[in-house]
Structure formats: structure tokens, C-alpha cells
């Protein structure tokens, strides 16, 4: 296996091991803090990771991603406030268990299930990403454009308050990506004569603004809220009886989470929700769900962590992010000068193994942290918001400024944050905008190249079966949900 040896050498380097350790601790901490998600943490860390070589940088981001997804379950179980959206389903049964004095058992199950999901998905990543990349060798501009359209169409089903708004968000991201000088014609677009905008809007300040500043303002709206924390008296591993009870739930959720993760744009949150629903549907004791079912923790936790590895499959193989955090990691790869896709595996085989080992290691590290340190991590929720968020803002400032050492990036970050808050208030989630922004260059360039090949005839796409398949899938992803809603409404009306 080319690259495996190099990756093993790299990953056993104490420096990189240290970075993975830091990334994992940082991930569990930010995941545990309500308001701080792994997407936001990777966005904040991204500018600083640029000081590192590609493999250490991506190892750091990947370990943060894995651990952050698990970290959210700590607060979901202890204070009924998911530290991150993927842990929302964990709170349904985790908090009732904690109220019964079984917080330790709940946290233990969350940690073990998360590791199972994460490990399974990393193995799938190792096998599936190169295979998918092989398929991508046959892709031309038309196929890449269709794939980007499919990826954007999947935004209609991710979190947020509506499919249409998510799609508009994705388009806004595409529009932001057009700012600057058009590389084909040399024409300035939306620069308004400002030389600072000639190179376009940098991805990182927008990312930090939309994720972190928007959340800072959202937190400012919750200053009066008070949360009751439940202490962890003793943490214990789930019993063998618990393991026996959840083994099929975990196995099912591993598959569901990985599959959902592989779908472009879908992420851990949706994986967790489906994992929870399926656990309940297949359970012998569905009546226990919502009252403190151990399966209700294992299902979503295995699924949301399984989505982490899955989401990196299309990200690395095709350059289409599998989730919001994967979009940040994709942005990191691009800023590092790496172009995800089949050639990445050819030119940088060690990178894939580097990501694989760092995620695998992160999974086992957070198992340790989750079991041994949950008591300590639970205390992180007691950090006063008044001290935490000024620190976050300062990191935002430094992150946005440090990239090019330019105040323009800081202004962009601030503007993105303020606009992002207004958009969020009206139901627009930040993730679709980021997806659109990340996919902007690929979408525009592949469309332009395809149109040149087709001599400006849209009908040229009809002769490309792979592209037409992606367009068909895009139509399905956009229209399936409304059609299903319409049919169920009609069925209800008929019954009435």
C-alpha cells in the first residue's frame, strides 16, 4: 500500500501524536460546551492549522471533528443541553437516565457506542474513499458540475427550518464565491472597485463569521437562561447486559450513520436522528424511549460518530463535502494547496492514511477521556459564558486576521457574522452557505468548461449518462420530501 509506511512513520511522530491528543481533548471540550460545535471549532482552528504541514494539520482537524461529535453527548446527558446539534437525540434518553442517578452509565454507553461508530466509519473511509476516487477518474467537467448540483440539492434535507431556505443559502454561498476577478476573463465581479476584493472573499473569515460570530450573538440572546447541571457521582462502563442489549442497535446505527455521512451535505445531526428513530423502531422495548432507554443513547451516538468518517468519503474522493465540518476540512485542504479528488490519492497517498490513523486514534483517545475524564469535562459547562465568549471572539479575530494579516478579513468576518445572525433568525442555517461557498469554484469552473465542450448547448448534458444520473438524484433529493408530504396530507384528508 503506497503511503501506508510513510503515514505510519508520520503518525507515530510524537509531535503529531501530541497534536492528535490536543485535538481530541479540545474536541471533547468544545463539543461539551453548549454553543460550541465541532464545525465552529474546526473553523476557528483552521487558520492556525495553516502553520502546520498538511498531514499534521488535517490530523488535528480530523481528531477535533471526531472528539467534538462525542463531546456534545456529555452536556446532552448531564444538563439536557446538547453541546452540539448531533447530540440532540442523545438528550432524549440520556438526561432522563442522568436524572435517575445513572449519568455514569449513560456517559459510558455514549462513549463506547461513539467509538464503535467512529471506528467502523473510519474503516469504511479507508476502503471506500479510494474506490470512489477511482470512479471519479472517468469524470469530466459535465460530471463534476452535475455532482456539485447533486451535492447542493442535498442541502434541501439538512438541518435548518426549510428546504427552500437551505437551497437559497447554498446559492448565496455560490454567489459569494463569484466575488473577485474572474480568472477566465479577468473581469472584476462584485468588487465595487475595492482592491481588497480583487482576489475574492477568503473562505476562512466567512466561515468564522457564520459559525462563531453568529453563535456569539445567539448566545447573547440567551443570557437569562439558566441550566441545571447534574453531577456525575461515579462513572462506570456499561454492563455486559447493556452491551448485549444494544449490540444490534449499535451495528445498525454504524451502517446508517456511515451511509448518511457519505451522502453529500448530510451530516452527523441527521444520522443521529435517523439512528435514534431506527433504534426505537427495531427495539423490543420502544415504550422505554424518552424515559431513559440505554438503546436510545447507543443508537444516535453510534450513528453520529459513524457519520464523521462517512462524511470524509465524498470530501476526499470527489471534493464534495459530506457535512458542514467536512466542508471546513475541505476548505483546509484547499488552502493547503491540495485538490481533493482522484489525483489526491495518487499524489498524496500518505494523507489518506494520515487521516485514517488520526481519526482512529482520536476515537480511542476520547473513549479514555470520556470514561475517565467525563467528571472533569462535565465541569466545563460551569465556565461562565461571560468569560468564555469574549475569549471565543478574540480567537475569531486572531483567526481571521492571522490568515493574511489583513484587517479586511476581519471586516469580512464581522459582516458575515452579523448577516449570518439575521439570516439565522429567519431560518437560514449557516452550513448551506458554507457548502455553497466551498463548492462555488468547482461548480462555476466545471459548468464553464462543460459549456465550452458542448459548444454552449445545454443539451450536451443529455449525452452524459453519469451527469444525467446525478441530475436525476438531485431532482429526487429536492422533490421527494414535498411529494411525500403532499401524499401523506392527501391520505390524512381521505381518512378524515
Amino acid at each position, binding site marked *: 500500500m503506497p503511503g501506508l509506511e510513510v503515514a505510519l512513520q508520520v503518525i507515530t511522530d510524537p509531535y503529531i501524536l501530541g497534536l492528535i491528543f490536543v485535538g481530541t481533548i479540545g474536541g471533547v471540550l468544545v463539543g461539551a460546551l453548549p454553543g460550541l460545535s465541532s464545525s465552529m471549532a474546526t473553523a476557528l482552528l483552521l487558520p*492556525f492549522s495553516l*502553520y502546520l504541514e498538511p498531514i499534521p494539520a488535517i490530523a488535528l482537524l480530523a481528531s477535533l471533528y471526531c472528539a467534538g461529535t462525542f463531546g456534545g453527548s456529555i452536556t446532552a446527558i448531564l444538563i439536557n443541553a446538547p453541546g452540539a446539534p448531533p447530540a440532540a437525540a442523545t438528550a432524549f434518553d440520556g438526561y432522563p437516565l442522568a436524572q435517575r442517578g445513572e449519568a455514569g452509565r449513560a456517559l459510558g454507553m455514549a462513549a463506547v457506542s461513539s467509538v464503535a461508530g467512529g471506528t467502523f466509519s473510519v474503516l469504511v473511509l479507508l476502503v471506500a474513499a479510494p474506490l470512489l476516487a477511482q470512479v471519479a477518474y472517468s469524470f469530466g467537467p459535465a460530471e463534476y458540475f452535475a455532482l456539485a448540483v447533486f451535492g447542493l440539492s442535498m442541502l434541501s434535507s439538512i438541518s435548518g427550518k*426549510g428546504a*427552500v*431556505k437551505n*437551497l*437559497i443559502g447554498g*446559492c*448565496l454561498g*455560490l*454567489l459569494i464565491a*463569484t466575488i473577485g476577478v*474572474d480568472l*477566465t*476573463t*479577468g*473581469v*472584476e*465581479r*462584485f468588487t465595487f472597485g475595492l482592491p481588497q476584493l480583487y482576489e475574492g472573499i477568503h473562505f476562512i473569515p466567512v466561515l468564522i463569521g457564520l459559525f462563531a*460570530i453568529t453563535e*456569539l*450573538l445567539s448566545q*447573547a*440572546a440567551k*443570557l*437569562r437562561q439558566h441550566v441545571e447541571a447534574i453531577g456525575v457521582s461515579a462513572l462506570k462502563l456499561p454492563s455486559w447486559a447493556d452491551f448485549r442489549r444494544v449490540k444490534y442497535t449499535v451495528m445498525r446505527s454504524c451502517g446508517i450513520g456511515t451511509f448518511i455521512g457519505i451522502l453529500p451535505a448530510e451530516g452527523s445531526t441527521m444520522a443521529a436522528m435517523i439512528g435514534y428513530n431506527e433504534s426505537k423502531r427495531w427495539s423490543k422495548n420502544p415504550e422505554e424511549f424518552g424515559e431513559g432507554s440505554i438503546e436510545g443513547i447507543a443508537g444516535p451516538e453510534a450513528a453520529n460518530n459513524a457519520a464523521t468518517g462517512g462524511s470524509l468519503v465524498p470530501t476526499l474522493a470527489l471534493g464534495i463535502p459530506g457535512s458542514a465540518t467536512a466542508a471546513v476540512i475541505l476548505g483546509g485542504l484547499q488552502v493547503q494547496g491540495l485538490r481533493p479528488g482522484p489525483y489526491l490519492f495518487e499524489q498524496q497517498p500518505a494523507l489518506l492514511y494520515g487521516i485514517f490513523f488520526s481519526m482512529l486514534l482520536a476515537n480511542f483517545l476520547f473513549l479514555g477521556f470520556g470514561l475517565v475524564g467525563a467528571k472533569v469535562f462535565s465541569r466545563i459547562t460551569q465556565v*461562565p*459564558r*461571560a*468569560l468564555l*465568549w*469574549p*475569549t471565543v*471572539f*478574540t480567537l475569531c*479575530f*486572531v483567526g481571521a*486576521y*492571522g490568515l493574511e*494579516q489583513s*484587517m479586511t478579513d*476581519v*471586516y469580512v468576518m*464581522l459582516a458575515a*457574522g*452579523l448577516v449570518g*445572525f439575521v439570516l439565522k*433568525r*429567519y*431560518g437560514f442555517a449557516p452550513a448551506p452557505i458554507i457548502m455553497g461557498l466551498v463548492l462555488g469554484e468547482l*461548480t*462555476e469552473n466545471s*459548468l*464553464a468548461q462543460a*459549456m*465550452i465542450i458542448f459548444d*454552449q448547448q445545454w443539451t450536451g448534458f443529455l449525452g452524459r449518462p453519469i451527469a444525467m444520473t446525478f441530475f436525476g438524484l438531485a431532482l429526487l433529493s429536492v422533490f421527494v420530501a414535498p411529494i411525500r408530504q403532499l401524499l401523506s396530507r392527501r391520505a390524512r384528508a381521505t381518512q378524515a
Partner: protein
Amino acid sequence: MIEPSGRSVRGLHHDVYVGFVMIVFCAVAFYVTTTFDSVPAMLSQNIPATFFPRLVLATITLLSVILIVSGLKRSAESLGSVPGSVFTTAAVITLAVFLVKPLGTLLTVGLLALTLTWLWGERQWSRIASLAIGLPAAIYLVFAIGLQVRFPRGVVMSLIGAGG
């Protein structure tokens, strides 16, 4: 008074207004595309610089129309008012960003920490002071010294000859 979010109110659903705002935004952006320089078709290979932005704007307009139509079928609901703390926080961080050039990064970070922690309800001066001193110190050590980031010194800091 904070209205409960999601409460029914009179008037149109907010999605209708959002859709109209989006359409106006698209119209303005479309107008801006008409001001782009034009280049010979040979140079642009018949794909002018306006092609993709206009395609995206047309898509947003179409989606906005769908948003308006679906919004018209829904009853209006209140989003609740935005608490004053949001506006003050937004004002403080905006002010901080624009104070970086005159005051320098470290002084601004210190002042921001002082102001924001107090505004967010922290009343223990030991904590406030720790953050106001510790945060700029950490930024200076880790980023300015460690990572060699050259932060704006600011007019004030330059005048008194301090680092920043």
C-alpha cells in the same frame, strides 16, 4: 417584552417578506452584473463573466418565489423580539474591530474583554481583570511571539512606544 417565539400574529408569514427581500437583493445584484466590464467573446470563450452569477441569481429568485408562495399559505407567527443584549454585543464587537487600528490589538482585546464580560453579567472584578489582562497576554505570547503574527500596533500604542 419578549414575545414567545412561534406565536401566531396578524399579517403575513415572515417568509413572504424574506422572499421579497431576496428578490430585491437579486434585482440589485443583477443590476450590478450589468456594470461588469465586457470582454470579446473570443477571450471569454462565449462564457461571459456574468453567466454564472446571473444563473445563480435566477435560481435564488425562483426559490424566493417558492418561499413567498409557501409563506402565503402559512399563518403569520411571531419570531419574538431580539433582546437588547444582542444589540449591545453586536455594537461592542463592531466597535472593537474598528478600534483595532487606532488603539492596537492588545489594548483593544483587553478593553473588549473588560466590556463584554461586564455586559454579559459578570460582576466579580477579579475574574474580569484576569480575563482583561490574561487574554491580551496570551495573544501576545502565542501569536505575536510564537507564531510571528504582526498585529496592528495602533496609533496610541505607537505614540507611547509600546508593542502591540
